[in-house]
């Protein structure tokens, strides 16, 4: 790790003024200002879709801004490329890892800046440097392992190590703690403290208040691509930050959802998956109730509901739907049994982006006589039904012939939700329902879930967002490393208890 300790006596390390960026039809950034000082940890705070990712990509040189000025270390920077950014000391650690899965850790560390002579790689030297760096960082990472053989947390460590190889003056961290445990997060925070003392500037992207409290010197709040305000972390309150981020009062974020538990609709006993991501899980969900599952990214909560729906192979255990055992689960059969799944990744698993909204919404019901008879589509009926549903969900603009690809995240989720209204369903499995959605749409999603529960459905919500899953659930399971770490209801359902359960499980796992 090579940190440039020469202090810039005048002015900030990084200074962005009036940065705008447009993608086809979407204004991602609208005249945003940002300045970061050397030795400061500056948090970029905002909801998903606020423009945080776009802004840091501009800083890292991934693409140029449409307008605005960019000064680094006092100099004006134009035509920045990722390579040049790295050369001048800007090091990004992205959320979507920039690692090549089929290469090893050390090969990835040096990607783009290999040590070579005349085109031939000097592998031994790179291995030495890689090991030195990893040792310095205190990570338990094996440089000779292939990246796709690593756990998500280790992949993140590799990503961080990659960013710290070479000269670093400004480090950008994009939601780095999403998949780290308390202990690993603690180590990351230590590392950050060290970097600050070495006068490295840090941009830390997050939408979690805890981290701001622990780390930030200043906070810049973004919303809908605009710079809302920059504040001193110490001088701001939580509710002030949330209000700036969402544009709404904090207590209006989650609707009050009545709890009227009926019979058990989903019952899972000793479930273990073939790939081991879920182990010996006992779980149940009742009608008229929201059952939440919280946990870190990669803990197995998504896999659990995917297995119920039929997307993950089951090695052992029993799943019962409405009392009857459900074997050989498959999406088609699940739908017929009244179980629907709403995937976390709408782009890869949810929508066919170049097809019209109408076709996307009706994808799950083409087996029903109301939509097709003897294999022939009833296109008139389809159009009327889907249009009515989209109207009910307040899809704006309401044209259902537009292709799904031009819709915002919130509208895309509405198209997915539309599927809930096209057939008789009693169990709803939501996987990260509010990821990539702006605040307004989020509230509509929560309202929708509320209506489902009020109508007597069993709703299961899987979420990595602790505030969300705490507020929505009537009963909350916490998963860690593939097992249930806790089941919390009522007054026990607190953030502290959730976090405490990770730690406990971690300990017991080590002893075993």
């Amino acid at each position, binding site marked *: 790790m090579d940190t440039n300790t020469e202090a810039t006596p005048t002015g900030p390390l990084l200074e962005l003024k009036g940065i705008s960026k447009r993608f086809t039809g979407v204004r991602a950034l609208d005249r945003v200002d940002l300045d970061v000082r050397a030795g400061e940890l500056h948090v970029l705070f905002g909801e998903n879709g606020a423009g945080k990712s776009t802004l840091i990509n501009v800083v890292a040189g991934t693409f140029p801004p449409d307008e605005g000025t960019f000064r680094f270390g006092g100099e004006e920077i134009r035509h920045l490329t990722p*390579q040049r950014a790295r050369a001048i000391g800007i090091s990004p650690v992205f959320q*979507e*890892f*920039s690692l090549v899965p*089929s290469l090893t850790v050390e090969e990835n560390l040096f990607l783009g800046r290999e040590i070579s002579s005349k085109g031939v790689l000097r592998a031994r030297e790179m291995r030495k440097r890689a090991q030195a760096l990893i040792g310095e960082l205190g990570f338990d990472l094996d440089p000779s392992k292939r990246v796709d053989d690593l756990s998500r947390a280790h992949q993140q460590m590799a990503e961080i190590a990659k960013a710290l190889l070479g000269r670093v003056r400004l480090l950008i961290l994009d939601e780095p703690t999403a998949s780290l445990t308390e202990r690993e997060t603690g180590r990351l925070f230590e590392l950050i403290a060290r970097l600050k003392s070495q006068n490295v500037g840090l941009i830390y992207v997050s939408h979690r208040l805890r981290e701001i409290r622990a780390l930030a010197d200043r906070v810049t709040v973004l919303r809908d691509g605009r710079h809302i305000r920059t504040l001193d972390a110490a001088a701001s309150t939580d509710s002030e930050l949330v209000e700036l981020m969402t544009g709404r009062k904090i207590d209006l974020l989650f609707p009050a959802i009545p709890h009227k538990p009926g019979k058990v609709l989903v019952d899972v006993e000793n479930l273990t998956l073939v790939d081991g991501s879920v182990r010996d899980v006992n779980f149940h969900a009742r009608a008229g109730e929201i059952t939440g599952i919280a946990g870190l990214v990669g803990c197995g909560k998504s896999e659990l509901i995917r297995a119920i729906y039929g997307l993950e192979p089951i090695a052992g255990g029993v799943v019962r739907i409405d009392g009857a055992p459900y074997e050989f689960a498959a999406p088609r059969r699940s739908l017929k049994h009244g179980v629907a799944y709403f995937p976390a990744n709408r782009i890869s698993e949810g929508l066919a982006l170049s097809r019209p909204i109408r076709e996307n919404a009706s994808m799950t019901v083409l087996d029903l006589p109301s939509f097709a008879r003897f294999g022939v589509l009833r296109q008139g009926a389809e159009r009327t039904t889907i249009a009515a549903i989209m109207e009910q969900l307040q899809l704006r603009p309401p044209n259902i012939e537009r292709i799904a690809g031009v819709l915002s995240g919130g509208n895309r989720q509405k198209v997915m939700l539309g599927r809930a209204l096209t057939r008789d369903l009693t169990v709803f499995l939501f996987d990260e329902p509010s990821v990539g959605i702006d605040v307004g749409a989020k509230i509509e999603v929560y309202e929708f879930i509320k209506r489902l529960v009020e109508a007597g459905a069993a709703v299961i919500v899987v979420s990595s967002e602790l505030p969300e899953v705490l507020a929505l659930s009537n009963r909350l399971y916490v998963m860690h490393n593939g097992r249930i770490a806790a089941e919390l209801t009522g007054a026990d359902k607190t953030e502290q208890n959730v976090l405490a359960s990770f730690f406990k499980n971690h300990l017991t796992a080590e002893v075993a």
Partner: protein
Amino acid sequence: MSTALTAAPPHTAAGLGRSIAGRIGFLPVLLVALVAGMSAIDAQFYGIINILNILRNASFLAIVACGQALVIIAGGFDLSVGAVVALASVVTAKTMAAVAATFPGNNTVIIASGVAAGLGCGFAVGLVNGLCVAKLKVSGFVVTLGTMSATAGVGLMITSGIPVYGMPEVFVKGFGRAQVFGLPTAVYVALAVVLVTMFAQRRTLFGRYVYAIGGNVEAAVVSGVSIQRHIVGTYAVSSVLAALTGILLTAQVGSGQASLGGDRMMLQSIAAAVIGGVSLRGGVGRVEIVTISALFLTILGNALNLLHIDSRLQPVFLGVIMVAAVALDELSQRRKSRV
């Protein structure tokens, strides 16, 4: 994670077999089985003439397959290799004939210019392929579909379909049909190509970047790797190697022919790559295994001949075995990811 393999030493022969197969894949096992089987069945199989024949043909295929493998690893496809083989053959022969007419007797110049012309046109086609894919962003499949037709056309145009004679004796008898230490020259060339490509893959910047681009092109871009340059590079290498094969074939056959290579060689090169572990998704593959695969395919064809399987039925066997090999690999991959 992968401690399963080392933590529990296999107690049975089956367990040992499975763990070895898991590490190096099915192919070498199949190859050994094939060779052993054939040797037991037909004595002619391990006769010296047959072995030399196999080695020579495998060499030709291996050279083309190496280039194809590189292109596929980087995420592309080269359908034009067969046509390039033909074009190079024709161009080399024509050039040699023309230069021989101007500088009779000066064999070095004649051969050098012929080889240069052949490799040169291969390079040209590769450049066109690479630039279209990299700059125009059209898929490799389509671009090389087009250049395949165009290149074949050019080759036929130059010769009007007739073989081209007039190459120096020393080129044909002294090189193409010669043997060094009992092995055909083609084998040495192939060995050299495979070794150099292996080295390039493992130890050079170019090789590393080809894997990176094929494995995760966004990561490569963000890391500052020059995507365009490397894509052009892979297509250029592929075409030059195809041209090299064309030249070797010409030296062996004794004349330039537009019928060499062709669709058959192109399909075989891709089959060799795929069976040799190159993933059509990109980012994965090693040329040494591709070479074994080329050897396997050649021996397979040879075996079918020797077994007097009707030459007309042979493609059937080839087809079935190829699909079976890849399907088996798919299934074993699925099982691996479950551990």
